[in-house]
Structure formats: C-alpha cells, structure tokens
C-alpha cells in the first residue's frame, strides 16, 4: 500500500499528463461519434477509428503530447523536490550544529563555572590559616567530580554525533553486566557516596536488542540519583525491576531521592528543543538517554515513587521500555 502511494506520489505529473492525453482522445472519439455516427453504423465507426492508421496516429499523438509535457513537468517537479529535500537535510544539519554549539556554550560553560568557582573557593579556604581539612577535601572531591561530569558530557556529545550520523549498529546485549558496569563507572564519579543497587529480578540471561550505548542511559539514571539525592543522604539506593510485557522488556529504576515535580516530568527530557526560541531545558543526560532509546524503538519516562504515587518528593521511578520489534528475549 505504501509502495502504491509512493509510486502515485512520485509519478503524479506523468500520470496526470497521460490521463489528460487519454481524456483528449476519449473526447475526440465522443465528438466524432456524435457527428459521424448518424452516417455510420457502430461497427463502421469502430473500424474507422481503430483500424485506420491515420486515426490511430492522431490518438497516439494526443497521448504522446500528454506524455511529453508531463515528463518535462515531472522532471521540473522532481528537481524542485530534490532541492526541497536537500534544503530540509541542510536545515537538520544546521539544527544539529546549533545544538552542539549550544551544548558548548551552555552546558560546558556551566561545568567550567562550577570548576572555576570551586577552585576559587578552595584557594580562599586554604588562604585562611584556620581552614578545616575536611571541608577542603570535600571541595577537592567536588572539583574532581565536576571535571568528570565534563568528561561525561563530552562522551555524550560523541554518542550524539554517532547517533546523528546513523553510525550505530544494533546488536544483542546482556542487561545484567551493563547494570553492574554503569554502577561502577558512576561510583568513580561519586567515590564518597556508596551506591547500592538491588536487582529485584534475575536478569542474568536477559538479552535485548540495542547497543552498548544503553549503558550510558543506565549511567545517566544512576548518576542523577546520586546528584539529586536528598540533603544529608549518605548513600544512594536504587532498585532495578525488570518485567517482561509480552515480547518486550520494561526496566524500572526506583530511587529514594528528591523526586521530580510533576510540571518538570516531561521537561527534563527536552534538551533538544532548547535551540528553538522560548523553550529551554537543562542538562543533556536524560535527553541523550531518550534519544539513544528511541534509536532502538524504546521509550523512557518518569513517575513518582511507586510507594508514594501522589508525592513527587518521595523519589522517582524511571521506566524504560524496549519495544517488541526491537527486542529479543533469550529465556534461560
């Protein structure tokens, strides 16, 4: 059906021209029929028109002229169509380069700001002879963490470029090791905050169709749980629940952090819209996560903690859904 529609759309000018040629021929036949029919029988009329070389040439000329002009028209339209497609492609590339520029000027600058102010604060603290060693160490750790965030941001930009250039091949990947390695990598960024991950199901043999980039999604979620933990929270606990819905997989990350207000629940994924005037988002991690998952036909969204569904401040549950068409589950 799609093919038929595409075909009709692609050659609409030729079809239109041919139809006009045929219509002129039919009109000619009809007029002849009305005028000549009084003197000829129907059989004679048919013989006159269809077994007469001059009449056939006349009909052929009508159809050919329709075809000729329609081909010229089609070529012209095709040319404009190609220009339009190229223009759209260029605009998409420009949007992408604007986005990269925006990430550089906004996100990286913000991280630089954090690092700079942290370094200045350290200097200020150290110049005070009565400085507290613990406070200085905490600030050094935060400075190191900021540089690591900057590094993660640069990696995210690289992933984004690869996704944009369609350089990502889908493969079967095991979920379990990805949870573990994501946690280990985030733990390096937050060495002073123990991260406890509790897998609520046995995911040892569970495979999905995707890409190791999915690890980056898990890292973003675990890292957010650490960054937005409740004030005074000394460790971060995350429960991961994997459920199979028909032939698809739903992965839930449940944390007990500060939670996300209802009006921000969709906004936090919308970083890609910031280059359009009037719309702003913050951070890149969750929007990259959504982009990565969408590449494999997946989805991500956030809800309140399942134990307190009406209280956004009680923590969050991030749900990832990998759709049936892109998911292969190998049962153990």
């Amino acid at each position, binding site marked *: 059906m799609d093919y038929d529609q595409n075909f009709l759309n692609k050659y609409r000018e030729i079809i239109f021209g041919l139809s006009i040629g045929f219509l002129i021929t039919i009109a000619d036949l009809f007029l002849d029929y009305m005028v000549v029919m009084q003197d000829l029988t129907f059989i004679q009329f048919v013989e006159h028109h269809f077994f007469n070389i001059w009449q056939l040439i006349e009909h052929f000329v009508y159809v050919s002229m329709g075809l000729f002009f329609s081909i010229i028209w089609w070529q012209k339209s095709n040319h404009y169509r190609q220009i339009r497609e190229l223009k759209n492609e260029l605009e998409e590339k420009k949007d992408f380069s604007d986005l990269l520029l925006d990430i550089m*000027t*906004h996100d990286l*600058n*913000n991280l*630089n*700001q*954090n*690092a*700079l*102010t*942290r370094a*200045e*604060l350290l200097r*200020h603290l150290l110049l005070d002879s009565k400085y507290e060693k613990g406070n200085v160490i905490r600030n050094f750790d*935060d400075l190191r963490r*900021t540089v690591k965030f900057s590094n993660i941001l640069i990696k995210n930009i690289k992933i984004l470029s690869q996704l944009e250039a369609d350089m990502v091949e889908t493969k079967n990947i095991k979920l379990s090791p990805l949870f573990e390695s994501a946690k280990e990598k985030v733990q390096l960024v937050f060495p002073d905050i123990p991260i406890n991950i509790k897998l609520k199901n046995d995911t040892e043999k569970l495979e999905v169709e995707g890409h190791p980039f999915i690890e980056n999604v898990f890292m973003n979620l675990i890292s957010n749980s650490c*960054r*937005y933990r409740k004030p005074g929270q000394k460790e971060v606990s995350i429960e991961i629940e994997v459920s199979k819905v028909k032939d698809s997989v739903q992965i839930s990350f449940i944390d007990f952090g500060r939670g996300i207000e209802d*009006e*921000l629940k969709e*906004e*936090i994924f919308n970083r890609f819209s*910031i280059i359009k005037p009037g719309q*702003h*988002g*913050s951070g890149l991690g969750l929007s990259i996560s959504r982009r990565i998952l969408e590449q494999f036909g997946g989805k991500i969204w956030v809800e309140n903690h399942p134990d307190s569904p009406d209280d956004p401040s009680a923590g969050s549950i991030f749900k990832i859904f990998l759709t049936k068409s892109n998911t292969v589950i190998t049962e153990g």
Partner: protein
Amino acid sequence: MRKARIMIVDDNYDLNQLFSEFLSLLGYEILFIGKNGKEALDFYKKTAVYPDVILMDYRMPLKDGLITSREILQLNSNQKIIFVSADERVKPEVEELGIKQIIFKPVDIDLLVQNIEIAVSSIQADLL
C-alpha cells in the same frame, strides 16, 4: 554595616550551592535559592523582605530568567538584578529590560562580588 541580602536563581544545583557557600563565607546573607524562575517569583511575591541583589540565570525550566526578571521588575522597579548567563546571545534582550549588569559564565568570583558591590552602592546612591 550589614552585607547585602542575595537571592540566587539558577537551575544548576551545584552552582547554587557553591555560590551560596562562597558568598556566605564572604559575609553575604543568602535570602533564597531558586531552581527556576517560577520558584523565584513565588518567593518574591510572598516575601516580606526583598533581596538587595538577585543573581539571575537565563536558561531555566518552567520560566526563564528574562521573563522572571520582567515580572520581578513589574513588582518592584528598583530591584537590582545581575544577569549571570552562559549564553551571550541574551545580552540585547537583558539590556532592553533595563538591566545593566550582565556577566557571562564562567565568571570569576571576584568579578561577581565586584558586581554585587556595584549594585549595592547604586542602592545606597538611590537612597541618598
């Protein structure tokens, strides 16, 4: 003489904490920290004591720094606002609001403090 009361509005959580810690160390009173323009406005409408100076970011969810500043200036046209943004393209729109102090991230704390002090002196000059 009392140090200025500061309100910080930025969606960068780490920076909010950092500015707050540093400015407190320098003796300023941190009146309120807002993560977005909406929070800042809600506070501003309810507070009995206005901040002397507001450090305002541009890009924030729910309500950006420009809209927030415009609404704050409608409530109190004498409010001193220092725009602290990573995006230099916003400068003409900020100036259109009548805000003269715009600094771009990354900014040295010395420059930030210098700007706060300029804002505070201009309040004192207005009072004379």
